């Protein structure tokens, strides 16, 4: 294998790939970065077993020659070392040559490195993903989908499947659900060109958080391919693979009540602030529970009472208040997370009694739906 490459482009590619490489891996080969060079371009792969990031650098781009391939091939190089070396090379032209026994020579200007590489056949094989089942989401929408759901995944490993977000394609919609069995976040998106057959995967919450770090805020399209083994998010040059969680995701559709007894429409931001204030006292008590009471004349009261700390009451004017009177208690943290996900718009909160879960959604539609279980207080 022998080729030259522009250092800047190599470094850009390495930066993305390095995000996936972890020093804590149990599989020795994953401490390395895999480099595949073909006549068309160069592919860099880094992985920590959970997520895998691949970048692609074409031979030519915009009429500019980026890579000059003399002899194609593959090699795995120690990620940390390689990254540092490339970062510190003196000139923008880098020459690679891999000879027998994975001896790798990296030359740039007058500096000349000899690195001992690893056998690229030892590197895990990434699944071959067909293009038939793919669908496209703009990057900014994908980012908001992740932001609106991933906070609700379970942090405890006792039910591993709940540490992920359930992505389901059904009836021309993508439905993303996350729950930790005390609250639930659901985001529905109607997309064009969704695959017709129904399919679903459970993507680990951590992988999605990582993914959202490398996505930009523009509307660049992201192609998504879901398989039984892995899910792939594909942008222009970067491929992001994540492993999935095994097991069946519980059926969450029946958790959402169908009829409601009390409907409240309120400005999300003012409610969020009121709850934040009430939770100042509730936080001291370890359970962080606030109480929500409907009053006369379209008013609600948010209160919190911790006998050893003190108490707080605050009344909020709401746009509408329909249905039965209600006193209900819930976790201030869950409520705040939910309101933050809906992001400041006017929200509708719908209750079916003090002991039943209630939902929060925006006034316009139920694309974003948050469900919270109340807390029993005496």
């Amino acid at each position, binding site marked *: 294998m022998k080729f030259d490459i522009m250092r800047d482009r190599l470094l850009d590619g390495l930066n993305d790939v390095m995000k996936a490489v972890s020093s804590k891996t149990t*599989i020795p*080969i*994953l401490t390395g970065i895999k480099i595949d060079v073909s006549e068309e371009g160069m592919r860099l792969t880094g992985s920590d*077993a959970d997520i*895998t990031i691949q970048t692609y650098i074409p031979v030519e781009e915009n009429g500019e020659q980026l890579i000059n391939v003399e002899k194609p091939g593959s090699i795995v190089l120690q990620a940390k070392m390689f990254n540092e070396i490339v970062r510190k090379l003196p000139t923008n032209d880098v020459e690679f040559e891999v000879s027998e026994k994975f001896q790798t020579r990296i030359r740039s200007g007058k500096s000349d490195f000899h690195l001992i590489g690893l056998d690229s056949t*030892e590197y895990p094989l990434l699944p071959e993903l067909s293009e038939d089942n793919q669908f496209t989401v703009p990057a900014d929408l994908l980012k908001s989908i992740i932001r609106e759901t991933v906070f609700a995944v379970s942090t405890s*490993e006792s039910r591993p499947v709940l540490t992920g977000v359930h992505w389901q394609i059904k009836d021309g919609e993508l439905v993303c659900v996350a729950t930790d069995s005390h609250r639930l976040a659901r985001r529905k998106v109607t997309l064009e060109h969704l695959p017709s057959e129904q399919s679903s995967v459970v993507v680990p919450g951590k992988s999605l958080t990582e993914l959202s770090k490398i996505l930009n805020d523009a509307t660049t399209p992201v192609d998504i391919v879901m398989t039984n083994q*892995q899910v792939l998010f594909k942008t222009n040059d970067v491929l992001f693979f994540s492993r999935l969680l*095994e*097991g069946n995701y519980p059926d969450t559709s029946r958790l959402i009540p169908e009829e409601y007894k009390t409907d409240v429409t309120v400005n999300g931001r003012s409610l969020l602030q009121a709850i934040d204030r009430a939770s100042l006292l509730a936080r001291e008590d370890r359970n962080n529970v606030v109480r929500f009471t409907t009053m006369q004349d379209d008013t609600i009261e948010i209160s919190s009472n911790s006998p050893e700390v003190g108490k707080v009451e605050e009344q909020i004017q709401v746009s509408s208040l329909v249905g039965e009177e209600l006193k209900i208690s819930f976790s201030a943290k869950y409520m705040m997370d939910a309101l933050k996900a809906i992001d400041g718009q006017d929200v509708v909160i719908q209750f079916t009694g003090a002991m039943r879960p209630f939902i929060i959604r925006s006034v316009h539609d139920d694309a974003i739906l948050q469900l919270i279980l109340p807390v029993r207080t005496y």
Partner: protein
Amino acid sequence: MMVQTAEELLKLQPVVMKQLQTIFDKKRLGHAYIFEGGKGSGTEAIMHFFVQLMFCEEPRKNVPCETCRNCQRIKSGNHPNFHQIYPDGQFIKVAAIEALLHEMNKTGLEAGRKVYVVHEADRLNPQSANKLLKFLEEPEGIVTAIFITDNINAMLSTIRSRCQHIKFQGISKDTMIKELVAEGITLSMAATVSMVTSDLEEAFSLSKDDEFAQARKTVLKLVEATFTNVHESMLSVHEDWLPLFKEKEQMELALDLLLFAFRDIVAIKANPEAVCTYPDWLSYWKKVALQTTYARLSTQLQAILQARQQLQRNMNRTLMMEQLMLNLQEGKSFV
């Protein structure tokens, strides 16, 4: 670890190898196995053989090809669907199990079966074992677990009951003693080392080892002292035993040797023709056996086993040995 070929393994463990190959041939791979076998019975080598067989791209006659990508990666420890857990210090800790479960609850990096191996599985502490239980019982996806242990009884019964038990035969003692004697080792030494290990090579190097010979002598001296009187044994502990056995492993070995000595006495008492660990002391054993009762010997054996456990818990060695000496005197007046 020595790389052994399938033929060598077949010679070492014919029954086990046949069993595993049949399991594979009939495609009846279970979800969990316990490989039980002492040192030298080839548990590690056969585990590798079996794992390679499960992953191999083109096995021939139920033997892995050793050359395909998967076989190579099992050997180098780079296969992403193959995980191994080793004890960290005394125990396999909860953190190790959590990491394993974290790994196992996700789909494999590559398609197909996932395999995990727990080495020295008797060192799973109860918390770790319980953590593993649920996953062991209801694994998600296609998973095979292999527990390797030399003492199945030290494992939690709830784990044992969920696994298929595969017992490895040790080399028979007679064969080993014969082999050693043929190599020019004295019969008495051969008999002793054959109790300590079932690995022929290890046995051979032990019998040549001066330190081991010294240990054997010291232990026997202490045995004699315990039957004389308690003051003598205390003296022996302080003068010979403690200065010689400084490391924990040495102490473990010494206590085992001590246990074998008392085992000999019981064996001789029951059957004067029995095979001894210390054949050179046969006449002394016979003499002692006449003077003691089974009940007393049983308390003494228990006392040694208890000391062995206390050693694992890092008890102060001097106190432990003194206590042991007193316990061995039980039922006998001190004056």
